[in-house]
């Protein structure tokens, strides 16, 4: 190499010097700090102000956390321990209330000897969700997901196992009706698949379960809905609402897009009315008014009513989010599906919805997170969610006067759930992004 240059260039480096570390001021943290935090007068001012603010917040919060008391029987006991250990003026959190009452915040008034049941239910729920959320799991596992709602109901509420089984049988009845009638007429089959199971649930399921239970009494101790509370209650209402509102919201969005006058107008009216009234009003409606409409003597579980209301409320929002996704698709996608001879439902299921839902993921998850947090509103109709229980705990003589520690704990539980949903949504978006481009 050097020969060629030897005649024209006076000096040619024969061997390369090893690369050197850049000077300290040009690398790493120092460089970053200088460039990002102290690059100009305004920047320096903002940095100093921010540091002052962070210092202000931390100097108040940190001692409170660091001096926390984790085991005491009451608030006054907490205060005594603080006076002894940290001095009477020290700020100190009394997390002893959580150690003392966490089971109530989590399980409500569920009988303590049965705490394993909500835990099993949670595990069942996670196992059932896994194949829905992650494509890597064999598709056969979806059968378990389909059966899981009945299993979970049975584990949580108990009673005879024949009840949930009889209800599940209704879906089989509906499917059989559909297959049987679709030989004659598609419309008749659809109607039959709706009407026959409803009749079955109203008139056959109850007696059938009763009869089977008297022949073969298998079951768990029954736990009434009144005993449900705490985070368990929020989680059940929230997750049921989320899982039910997605399909309903999609149907409403399709309905709103439909050319069929009645379906279109019904969907629009439903969405606008549900959305136009605050959730709390619907919850009061659920707790008070429904009793007037339902035939006297029907004992319609309050929790179930709340789940229905929350579902309807969220589905109106989901419908609007999905409608945005549908509208964002180029018209060519609909036309290509039509031109290939796909019928409406197939083109929706195979072509339109996968794309529209992908676009709508952030909005859908946003709605889910909102719904999940809104379940705390049930405290106003007398259900004991974590907020309701925190009031109850504060009403006891031991813990009278405690606020922040309970709210920190409740907030943390909600945060974990909502943050997981948010992360999952990002994971899903990235995955779909990678797959489709």
């Amino acid at each position: 190499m050097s020969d060629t240059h030897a005649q024209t260039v006076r000096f040619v480096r024969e061997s390369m010097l090893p690369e050197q570390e850049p000077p300290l001021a040009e690398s790493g943290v120092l460089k970053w700090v200088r460039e990002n935090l102290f690059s100009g007068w305004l920047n320096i001012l903002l940095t100093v102000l921010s540091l002052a603010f962070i210092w202000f917040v931390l100097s108040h919060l940190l001692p409170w956390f660091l001096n926390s008391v984790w085991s005491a029987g009451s608030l006054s006991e907490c205060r005594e321990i603080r006076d002894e250990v940290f001095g009477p003026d020290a700020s100190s959190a009394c997390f002893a209330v959580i150690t003392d009452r966490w089971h109530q915040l989590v399980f409500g008034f569920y009988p303590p000897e049965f705490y394993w049941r909500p835990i099993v239910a949670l595990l069942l729920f996670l196992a059932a969700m896994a194949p829905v959320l992650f494509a890597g799991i064999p598709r056969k596992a979806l059968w378990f997901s389909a059966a899981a709602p009945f299993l979970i109901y049975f584990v949580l509420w108990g009673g005879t196992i024949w009840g949930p089984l009889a209800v599940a049988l209704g879906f089989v009845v509906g499917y059989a009706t559909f297959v049987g009638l679709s030989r004659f007429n598609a419309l008749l089959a659809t109607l039959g698949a709706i009407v026959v199971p409803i009749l079955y649930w109203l008139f056959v399921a109850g007696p059938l379960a009763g009869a089977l239970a008297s022949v073969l009494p298998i079951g768990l101790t029954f736990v009434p809905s009144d005993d449900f509370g705490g985070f368990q209650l929020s989680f059940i209402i929230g997750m049921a609402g989320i899982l039910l509102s997605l399909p309903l919201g999609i149907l409403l969005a399709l309905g709103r897009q439909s050319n069929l006058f009645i379906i279109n107008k019904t969907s629009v009216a439903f969405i606008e009315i549900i959305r136009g009234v605050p959730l709390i009003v619907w919850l009061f409606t659920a707790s008070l008014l429904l009793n007037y409409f339902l035939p006297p003597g029907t004992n319609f579980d309050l929790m179930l009513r709340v789940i229905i209301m929350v579902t309807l409320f969220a589905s109106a929002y989901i419908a609007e989010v999905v409608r945005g996704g549908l509208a964002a698709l180029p018209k060519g996608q609909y036309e290509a599906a039509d031109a290939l001879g796909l019928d409406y439902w197939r083109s929706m299921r195979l072509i339109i919805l996968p794309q529209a839902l992908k676009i709508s993921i952030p909005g859908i998850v946003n709605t889910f997170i909102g719904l999940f947090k809104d379940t705390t509103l049930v405290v106003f109709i007398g259900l004991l969610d974590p907020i309701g229980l925190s009031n109850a705990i504060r009403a006891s003589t031991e813990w009278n006067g405690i606020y922040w520690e309970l709210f920190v704990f409740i907030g943390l539980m909600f945060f974990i759930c909502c943050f997981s949903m948010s992360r999952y949504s990002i994971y899903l978006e990235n995955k779909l992004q990678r797959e489709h481009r």
Partner: protein
Amino acid sequence: MTDAAPATPLETQREIDRSHMTVSDEVAIQISGMNKWYGSFHVLRDINLTVYRGERIVICGPSGSGKSTLIRCLNRLEEHQQGEIVVDGTELSNDLKNIDKIRSEVGMVFQHFNLFPHLTILENCTLAPIWVRKVPKKEAEETAMHFLEKVKIPEQAHKYPGQLSGGQQQRVAIARSLCMRPRIMLFDEPTSALDPEMIAEVLDTMIELAEEGMTMLCVTHEMGFARKVANRVIFMDQGQIVEQNEPEEFFNNPQSDRTKLFLSQILGH
């Protein structure tokens, strides 16, 4: 087309095998007294057209003359208000069964390809055979690979449409239609959204299709293609069929002034 664009006539340099390009006297499409309005706008006026099996028809005309609307009426992407359209012996009416039947017999290729971006090339091609024709998945995949080979992109089968060039996407769109084994193919300006160097590869695919005797209705401004492949050229203006003739006659001896004007604009300079 300007003289400075030698990319297009690639297809014209090739000898075309006409042995299968026979026109039978069996009617494939019969349009009689057809009218269509968009609101008060009369977009198609008194269209009468008979297409025989094996015919290759090129439809041309100025933008907005209703060419797209006409061929979209043939598979009911648009609804006509008056007159009668019979495709493959089935009349197009509001009967959904008839519409689905016709759509599965008639393939359509769009200007903007309209591939399904969330499915792989192979899935794009097998979707309709599996769900509409109820072909077993394995068989559908074999058919799809056969047609992907025919349009010369079998190696792209497992990619997504977004990873392909425009010309490749359009060839996939043609393969996707062919997988349904249609008896009639409709093309709506299949090359207008393509860069010049990709036009030839798509036209080549279409020529091969014509050589096999496919009945084709093709909206295009590729006059080289029309001359070589079409056995009839139709000129539309303001919603009417103004003139139709064999390509040689049509280009060398246009009858109406509107046709002359159009041809001078599109060929001239």
